């Protein structure tokens, strides 16, 4: 994975290579991974939010019920 193994050799080269992160050349795979994470996160949180909302709505609390739950630590 190491793109640079010797800084002296790297910086004294005729043309210094700019990209120094690990795995240069794998950027496309990293972008695909990010897209999968991004879509997955939206899916998981959307399902979870729908479930939470439906559960709370079923309880039919009134507009002032929350006041009995105000903490005073």
């Amino acid at each position, binding site marked *: 994975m190491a793109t640079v193994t010797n800084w002296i050799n790297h910086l004294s080269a005729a043309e*210094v*290579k*700019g*990209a*120094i*992160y690990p795995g*240069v050349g794998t*950027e*496309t795979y*990293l*972008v695909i991974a*990010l*897209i999968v994470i*991004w879509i997955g996160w*939206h899916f998981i*949180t*959307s399902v979870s*939010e729908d479930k*939470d*909302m*439906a*559960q*709370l*709505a*079923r*309880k*039919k*609390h*009134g*507009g002032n*019920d*929350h006041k*009995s*739950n*105000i*903490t*005073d*630590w």
Partner: protein
Amino acid sequence: MTDQLGALTTIFTEFYYWITVVLMFLIHVGFCMYEVGASRYKHHQHTLMKNTMLIPLVTVTWFLFGWWIYWAFPTGPGLAPSIMNESAALITDESLFSAKWYVPNSDLMAVNLGDHISGVFWAAFLLFAWTAASIVSGAVIERITTFAFGILAIAIGSVFWSIDAAWGWHFDGWMLKLLGYHDAYASGVIHAIAGGFALGILIVLGPRIGKFSSSGEPRNIGPRNPWLVTIGLFLIYTGFWGFYAACNIPIFNLGPEYGMEGVTYWTATNIYVTPTTLGGITMNFLMSLSGGLLAGYVISGKDPFWTYSSGLAGIICASAGNDLYHPIQALIIAMIGVVVAYKLHYWVERTFKIDDAVGAVAVHGYAGVAGLIICGFVLNGYPSSGYGVGSMWVGTDYAPINPLGMFIGAVIMFGVLGLIPGYIIAKILHAMGKLRIPRDVELAGLDYNMMETAKKDERAVASSNR
């Protein structure tokens, strides 16, 4: 970077933008505090999380496509040719400032010894994107789902703001060339568009339960915690200072840039690469803040919430031309913007039953639009770019700043890229049943379950003896 002066200029510029990013983070801190202060107790934590989660959502999409849009779209496409390649197509060729270098799998979108500036410039623009989304966030509190807000935040933060910045906040933007558009500190490209977008959503989303009486009279749902609102707005002012700094290039030699043979002229410039001074814009920032506070204090009847917001509205209104205005002009323009924003807010609320919970549409949208229109008159005749000044509608050169062009620009920012997309996306989310939380949840409070759990914990801890 092999010569010391060149290296110093590059590293200074890199560090300059780095500092602005840190300062601009305070805008988001301020918005979080402000919104929590404005929301009611039973919605606090949801309000906070909603605004917090826009950070990763907009950041990821800004990395994937938002930054690319900014560099690809200055030509429209198809509206005016680029000065770099003389083509009106999307700028994706080998040009120096092409979007080609900013696709997410480019090696310039990472630590790269050959490019010290792109990353920090990416970050500065990302913070602008957060701001655009955060402006919308305040307007819709206490009744929007987190999912819907996330989609809308991505739309305004990583798509529509990026398109408007390419069109009107880029040295090669078509709006400069055809309209003579000038918006140095983003009255339109951040504030008017975000205000318009928020209004589009609010039309579909509807008011909070209880906001209007059965006869349609609006009721005031005041901020629950005025201290959080106060600190939040002061932090937004502070971050806005960083925002102003980030809208400049701190050191640039305009002589060779403009093709002036033998001329060397080092200066700070605005985003359009025309000269200004950091000293001058700081004076204008403070004078427009003062103008906004002065006007807000009077017109709101000394209401603290509106007075603080008016300070912000004042800066926003003067921002379009604050690179060139005299400080007293900045102050007067700010005062006008505040009066317009305040009056329009209550007129729209009463007439159309729009519940803008924090006055975001007014402070950002109406003040931003007013600022653009005023700028067209006050800066009438100034060049919109240093690269060339032509006649309006010619399209091959840059039009000078003018009232009609700025008015059209305001319509594009607030309406075309703000209100209409906000309305359409909200309509789609509404049709999917994803836009608004259920009525019973709104009544109970979004934090009900969290509060109930906390109360149980409190009782359990209080009754423990070991």
